């Protein structure tokens, strides 16, 4: 018994030693990104320091400037190069996985939002209790119901929602396992659609905080410039973004996003759902906030380095 205990203690001690050795090593171990930064910066710093040392010994002005230059530019190079980034595949896979989860949940409730997505509207409610302009929503028409005209009747649905977005318009009784209980018939006036909080609202909040502004206070042209700046400089997602009203129809907005990475994200997501595409749905929500109308994706085309989307604006009644 004592021998067994001693053997166990020795085993634990060995494990702890290995752990400590690994942990100590990991403190000084550099990851590949840090190594890449040092490959450029370290030789400059070392050579610069040596030059400064010799300049001090020999009082040489040329060596001083060489040393100062190398040390300064080596430090700057190390400081400005970023060693932390995530592969874009991680972002794309995460977004696709969560979107498929949402779609699966909705299809269980009898709502299908597919790649066509002509039956999904993005909007901001006027009711302050629902968040007003701080929370965007998706309205999804039920299967078999098609939107008509340039207006969308949301009042009856919004009145039934509480502050948490609960109390939605559809009641469905899911029968217990093993029983043959019939599904409760849904009243006709509840069969139009349902409202859920827009998943891309988080991106809108992030964009507005980075710009330190509110999209509701912007015109379409200002929105175009702001989002282009965000996508190009802040998040490095695209080469250019252009949002403009259609020349012939004020209720149509044409958006062109150029960039290989954006096209890749959108092409994967549009096969799943345009309304859940982080790029397209965020732009749609921003347009909705700016114009005060509901936005629906009319058509979308994706090239290798370009995404063209046409949005329709609808009055909310």
């Amino acid at each position, binding site marked *: 018994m004592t021998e067994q205990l001693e053997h166990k203690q020795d085993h634990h001690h060995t494990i702890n030693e290995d752990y400590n050795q690994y942990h100590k090593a990991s403190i000084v171990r550099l990851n590949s990104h840090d190594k890449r930064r040092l490959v450029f910066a370290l030789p400059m710093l070392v050579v610069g320091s040596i030059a400064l040392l010799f300049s001090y010994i020999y009082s040489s*002005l040329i060596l*001083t400037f060489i040393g100062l230059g190398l040390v300064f530019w080596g430090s700057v190079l190390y400081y400005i*190069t970023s060693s932390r980034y995530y592969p*874009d595949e991680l972002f794309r896979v995460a977004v696709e996985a969560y979107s498929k989860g949402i779609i699966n949940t909705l299809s269980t409730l009898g709502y299908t939002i597919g790649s066509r997505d002509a039956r999904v509207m993005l909007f901001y409610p006027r009711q302050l209790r629902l968040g007003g302009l701080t929370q965007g929503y998706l309205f999804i028409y039920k299967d078999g119901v098609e939107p008509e005209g340039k207006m969308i009747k949301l009042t009856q649905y919004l009145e039934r929602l509480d502050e948490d977005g609960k109390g939605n318009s559809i009641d469905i009784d899911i029968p217990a396992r093993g029983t043959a209980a019939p599904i409760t018939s849904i009243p006709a006036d509840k069969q139009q659609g349902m409202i859920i909080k827009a998943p891309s609202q988080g991106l809108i909040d992030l964009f507005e905080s980075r710009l330190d502004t509110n999209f509701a206070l912007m015109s379409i042209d200002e929105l175009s410039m702001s989002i282009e700046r965000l996508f190009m400089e802040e998040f490095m997602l695209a080469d250019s973004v252009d949002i403009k009203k259609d020349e012939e129809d004020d209720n149509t907005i044409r958006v062109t996003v150029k960039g290989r990475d954006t096209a890749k994200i959108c092409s994967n997501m549009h096969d799943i759902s345009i309304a859940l595409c982080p790029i397209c749905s965020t732009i749609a929500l921003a347009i909705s906030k700016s114009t005060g109308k509901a936005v629906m994706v009319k058509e979308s085309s994706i090239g290798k380095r370009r995404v063209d989307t046409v949005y329709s604006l609808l009055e909310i009644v």
Partner: protein
Amino acid sequence: MYAFAFNLWDIGLWLAVSSIILLITSELLAPYYGRMKMLIDVKRLRIVAIGSGLTFLVIAAIRISTIIG
């Protein structure tokens, strides 16, 4: 005798040239993204550029004050 063969004004002039190069680079830097192995943080580059420019201005102010004084 060991000594560095420069004075404060030499450092100031050198900083002036460096800050001009850094400021121009930070403004002209193209937003390449994702494909390069070394990502450059433009904000940090701007901070360094403005910092070195301000340091030069401080050195210039010191020199002006010594001339006037």
